[in-house]
């Protein structure tokens, strides 16, 4: 009996923990929200959206086809490596300043220095460089909010853009909107 009570108590506690865990995962903590906001801000600042789109789905375009971050198999270290080094011969830029400098002590990116980046090994340099901790933060953002997701959703779109733009309308077709109100200064 006692055992049974204990078992029941343990089961209840376990259930409560599972429920709590579910609640925690459904309701992001302030720290998680802050981390997501930071990652999202870097994702926007570095113009990842320019090719991979806000939702990470990538696809064809004037800059060439960007791979889908939603379907990526890369792990954290591989994402950090790809953002840091870019992809030789492809459109993905390198985001860490000086990473291919010829006179650097180490050549962490494929063992290449600037002189190796000719022809098919050309690497595009990013318009905005990131610090190593920013690269880690954007990798964590991709892992937590993009990788493994299915089709983009209204909630994801609103989390990215907020509700001041009509950019998320295609996920919410019945919403009616007014045109913006122009302003004049004179």
């Amino acid at each position, binding site marked *: 009996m006692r055992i049974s009570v204990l078992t029941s108590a343990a089961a209840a506690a376990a259930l409560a923990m599972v429920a709590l865990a579910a609640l925690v995962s459904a309701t992001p903590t302030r720290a998680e929200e802050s981390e997501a906001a930071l990652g999202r801000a870097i994702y926007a600042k570095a113009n990842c959206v320019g090719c991979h789109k806000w939702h990470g789905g990538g696809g064809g375009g004037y800059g060439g*086809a960007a791979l889908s971050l939603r379907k990526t198999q890369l792990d954290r270290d591989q994402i950090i490596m790809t953002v840091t080094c870019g992809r030789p011969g492809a459109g993905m830029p390198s985001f860490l300043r000086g990473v291919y400098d010829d006179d650097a002590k180490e050549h962490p990116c494929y063992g290449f220095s600037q002189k190796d980046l000719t022809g098919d090994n050309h690497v595009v340099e990013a318009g905005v460089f990131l610090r190593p901790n920013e690269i880690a933060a954007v990798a964590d953002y991709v892992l937590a909010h993009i990788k493994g997701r299915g089709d983009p959703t209204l909630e994801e779109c609103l989390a990215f853009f907020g509700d001041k733009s009509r950019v998320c309308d295609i996920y919410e077709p019945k919403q009616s909107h007014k045109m913006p109100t122009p302003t004049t200064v004179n």
Partner: protein
Amino acid sequence: MKADKLYLRLLAGAALTCLVSGVAYAEGGPAAEKPQTVKSPDVTSQRLDNADKEMAEGNWITHHGDLQGHRFSPLDQINKDTVKNLHVAWTMALGGIEGGGIWTHGGLEGTPLAENGYLYVTDGWGSVYKIDARGGKGTLIWKMDPKTDHDWAGAVACCGVDNRGAALYKDLVISHTLDGRLIATDKETGQVKWQRQVANPDKGEVVTGAPLIVKNMAITGVAGGEYGIRGWIAATDLDTQKEVWRTYTIPSKGEPGIETWKGNVNAEVAGGGATWVTGTFEPSTNTIYWGVGNPGPDWDNAFRPGDNLYTDSTLALDADTGKIKWHFQQTPNDPYDFDSVSENVIVDVDGKKLVLHANRNGIGYAMNRADGKFEWAVPFVKQLTWTKGINPQTGKPVEYDPKKDVQGYNIAPHRGQPFADFCPGNMGGKNWPPTAYNPDLKLWYIPVIESCNRVTIAPEKAIPAKSREFFTGGGPSQPVRITGSLTAIDATTGKVAGKYETRFPDLGGVLATKDLVFSSEPNGEVYALDAKTLQKLWSFNTGGGVNAPPITFEVDGKQYVAILVGMGGAWDKWFIDATPELKTMQPGSMLYVFGL
């Protein structure tokens, strides 16, 4: 004081409280004390029909200067003898530099308008600025900010945060926004009178071109050929704000031309055929000439077997109904992204009534205005590899085979060989920056991108399940350096008359005067050439990337040249690797005005 004479002539008999010069000017600049403004007369359709004559009086009242698309001014104070003394008269910092959607910043591609001493310019997000240019300085009179939805529009703008200028109608300034609105602003107060949603970014449609005023209508073209749209040209009655007609560039089922889309490719949903460059108008025949862009998907032409009408075509439209009078397709079943959007310049040469069109495919075409009959073609680029030439009878590429569903031409990427290098590259031998035509010399000046690039096919299986997604069937890369030129074509012979080569592509467009040609390079240089010899006579480096066309105007009896400076558009995002030195150019937003 020619502008004043015109003003008095136009307003003779009208009851007006007007006034006048003799105003004490403060120092110029946006925040300067405002001079007393002088009410400008209504811009009537009669004035627009005679816009070329107003240019002699110092005005520039429609996008291409005149309805014919000449961008030719007879003003001659600045000429080949005096141009060496040309210098900055004043500048003004504008706005619109912020990013949105997939874009980190906006840029300036607009053609300024000039009327009776006032300039009307736009920035990339569609703000309109009225600037008093009297007294040798610039003073901001008003700025109308349309509060464009940056992310909604910027996420489906293939090629930059762009707005190519405004239009004038009666007492209104008519303008577009990237998020698809047509806006009428009171010319005197800057207050918005009305606005109308004419394009829908939910479908991937945006608007970058300037409106063309035809009679009482604003003609709007749409952009979005990379986002699986169905292109159109629309006419809005500016007095009732109602749509008069909308002509789709892709036929629907049962209409002529749909047979050129074989297989079930949903062309009437996502066939492309955008119309993003402002056209021309011939009042005497009531005909609008307008170019149509690439089919969708851009590069995977096996997805859309057939000629794909009316993509990559010049259209002649009845101005009252929008009905297509004739078409001429330059690149059937296009595998290159060779839009035919460029303006069709109305010229009369040796008794022939022609339109001239500098296509992205590197070839300049002359077509008969009455029926679209092909007259002649001439390559205006140094390297042209995609075709071995144009059939002199048909005007089609010599490799074109109407029996084939999928064209390969001389060289093209295709599903069996998914990448290919071809010249000119996909930005074209000439993109949107406008040509100019000197009717005295019969010389036609083309701003050229001397280029090759590589396109890699990524076959499409179906049109996108959701709108607002790229639908290109692959993408370009830039393995070789790109340069530029300003190339002159003799319209009487259809031959190249001269080429001024430049280190960078011409991304701005051309202005012609009696004995000069003005243009620019994206490294900041604005320059003037001798109109006959193309010898450089003057240049000035603005310090900002130039990708907007120059105009000239006169005020207080003095001639000026105006140009917007602020790198935007597609180049610094998608094509910068072909011009690596331009990576150092910073975003900016400035109006430069030069005088003697």
